[in-house]
């Protein structure tokens, strides 16, 4: 069965004016126009938007504009070289569709984020990373060519070896250098479409860091879930999951079937996510992992995309929505950095349902690409009165450690803080000035963080 995807976060019912939001469900006035023909659609539009999974304001129009170009109808595969894995497709193709078509044939995206509800264009714009970052780096490293509409109206091709300044500013550039129309990437051969997973319950954060570092050379995919409410000796306890594609003799003969998805049908009230309920959830999740060490074959969707099983899970966070805070703490900050960060988080009462820790490898070549060698920590925060202050304090800690945050998740970082985290920003702005001197392309996020004209 083929799958049609609608962008999430578009909303016409109920409001007099159409509204748009990111995955964190904070609405602004705006609407999406869609067409199969991206070349004509993007002619006078300030920003492209894929499936709307950026948490914050990355895919929202700046305050003076209302319209963004929705790319999801432009979803054709244009060429595939089955000898080497080179695949070219239009930017609106979803990862869900790519997986549906290619997993059974023994191919997988070189880098996968934690959801399949993303488009190729979005994956380039955010330069997404996955559980294999310590080994394979970001998505952009596996992209050979981009076809783009740039600010002067031209349509150009770029890559590492062709208009490389534009390419490097676009990979991780949050769509601010132009509209991405087509993407050419190298798919990865896999022995079977099933995952061999080993998972281990871990007692505290130091043990966690060691276990992640130790698993890195042995496993292509590693990720940890941490209980970020526990303090003291239990701080940073959690579950480490390691995986690799199962070799043929181990894997079930049949390809995995698409999993059934359970929708969260409506917005839950705010009191559902109290400190107590989150604590209970974390406690259950931790102890449910029995015995302490488990191994076996798992479905690729439950390994890579556990949250995709719940449609609209962002409704759990209630009417005020939520934000995700994701930062990377560099190796130079030492092994204690994660402990210091968690200590601050638990002291400030930042309760998170899900807290994910990942081992990052080399920095990507994208000028604003997020990961760098170190540990990445991601947590979901329901929006409350004190959220801005909490993000500020976390950001100050991250700056002190020499780390940085992920734009695709952000909606609260202050411009000054971002500048302190990002020594590469000046170079990126310089390239952007060359390609788009009048700031034709901009988003709510670029106005907030880079001071673009509204």
């Amino acid at each position: 069965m083929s799958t049609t995807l609608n962008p999430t976060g578009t909303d016409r019912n109920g409001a007099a004016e159409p509204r748009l939001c990111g995955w964190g469900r904070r609405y602004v006035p705006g609407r999406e126009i869609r067409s199969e023909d991206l070349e004509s659609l993007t002619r006078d539009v300030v920003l492209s938007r894929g499936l709307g999974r950026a948490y914050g304001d990355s895919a929202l129009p700046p305050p003076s504009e209302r319209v963004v170009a929705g790319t999801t109808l432009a979803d054709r595969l244009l060429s595939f070289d089955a000898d080497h894995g080179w695949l070219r497709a239009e930017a609106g193709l979803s990862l869900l569709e790519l997986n549906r078509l290619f997993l059974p044939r023994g191919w997988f995206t070189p880098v996968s984020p934690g959801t399949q509800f993303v488009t190729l264009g979005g994956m380039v714009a955010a330069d997404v990373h996955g559980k294999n970052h310590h080994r394979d780096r970001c998505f952009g490293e596996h992209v050979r060519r981009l076809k783009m509409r740039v600010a002067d109206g031209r349509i150009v091709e770029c890559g590492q070896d062709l208009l490389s300044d534009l390419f490097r500013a676009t990979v991780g550039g949050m769509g601010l250098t132009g509209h991405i129309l087509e993407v050419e990437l190298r798919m990865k051969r896999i022995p079977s479409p099933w995952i061999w997973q080993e998972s281990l319950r871990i007692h505290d954060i130091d043990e966690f860091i060691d276990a992640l570092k130790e698993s890195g050379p042995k496993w292509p995919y590693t990720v940890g879930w941490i209980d970020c409410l526990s303090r003291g000796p239990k701080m940073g306890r959690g579950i480490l999951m390691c995986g690799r594609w199962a070799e043929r003799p181990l894997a079930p003969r049949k390809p995995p079937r698409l999993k059934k998805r359970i929708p969260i049908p409506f917005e839950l009230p705010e009191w559902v996510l109290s400190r107590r309920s989150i604590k209970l959830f974390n406690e259950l999740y931790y102890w449910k992992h029995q015995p302490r060490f488990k191994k076996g074959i798992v479905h690729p969707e439950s390994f890579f995309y556990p949250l995709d099983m719940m449609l609209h899970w962002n409704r759990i966070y209630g009417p005020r929505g939520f934000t995700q805070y994701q930062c990377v703490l560099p190796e130079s900050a030492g092994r204690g950095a994660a402990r210091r960060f968690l200590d601050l988080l638990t002291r400030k009462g930042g309760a998170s349902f899900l807290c994910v820790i990942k081992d990052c490898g080399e920095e990507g070549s994208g000028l604003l690409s997020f990961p760098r060698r170190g540990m990445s920590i991601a947590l979901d925060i329901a929006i409350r009165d004190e959220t801005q202050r909490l993000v500020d304090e976390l950001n100050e800690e991250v700056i002190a450690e020499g780390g940085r945050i992920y734009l695709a998740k952000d909606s609260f970082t202050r411009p000054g803080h971002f500048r302190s985290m990002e020594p590469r920003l000046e170079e990126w702005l310089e390239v952007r000035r060359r390609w788009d001197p009048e700031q034709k392309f901009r988003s709510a996020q670029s106005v907030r963080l880079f001071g673009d004209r509204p």
Partner: protein
Amino acid sequence: MRVVFLGATKGMGRALARRMAERKDELFLLGRNLQDLEASAADLKIRGGHERVNVGVCDLEDSDRFAPALEAARAAMGDVDAVVITAGLFAVQEKLESDLDLTRRLLTVNFTHTLLFCEHARRMLLARGGGTLCVFSSVAGERGRRPVAIYGASKAGLSRYLEALDHRHRAEGLKVVCVHPGFVRTGMTDGLKPPPFAGEPDEVAHIVLRAIDRGTPLVYAPRMWALVMLVIRWLPRFVMRRVGF
């Protein structure tokens, strides 16, 4: 199945052609723009994992090209089992009212030329002893409604023709499948406010493919629209006038 497909590059046609390619049907795509056709052919070949997709230029506005285009398709595939037409024009009522040239174009394409294309296809299919002719009409033609007075009229005429065509030739082996899509979220309807029960192109494709296989003469997609239209067909005129839709 060997299928000639007019309108496979966009919207519901794209979704239906994908399902056909994935189940290894052979396709010959007809459309206005060769480059666009070739991109769609590449997409279908990769999805289907086979090479049996060819293309030819044929514009619904140019009725002289219908016969040669169908003949080219037949020659390329050897034989034709089914002809599918999803192409058509759409514009909102206000735009049509203010631009009579556009109105003329829309009526010509959606009614006169689609009917002429069907006549050529009918002859070709009957000559080989039958086959399936599947044409996308619309629920917009079932009642006279304010927002689709002109578009609806073009589709109403088309539906009546398809109904009669099915009666006329079913015994000779020609099955005519008339599709009445409800509101479907495609590029064509982008910018319109979706009503309740708005559908997705792939949902429609799934239903239509079954209808083609079974030779269902009239099919609503998404299915809910059969019920919606049942109610609307029976609404008295004074009610239609009051509700203003």
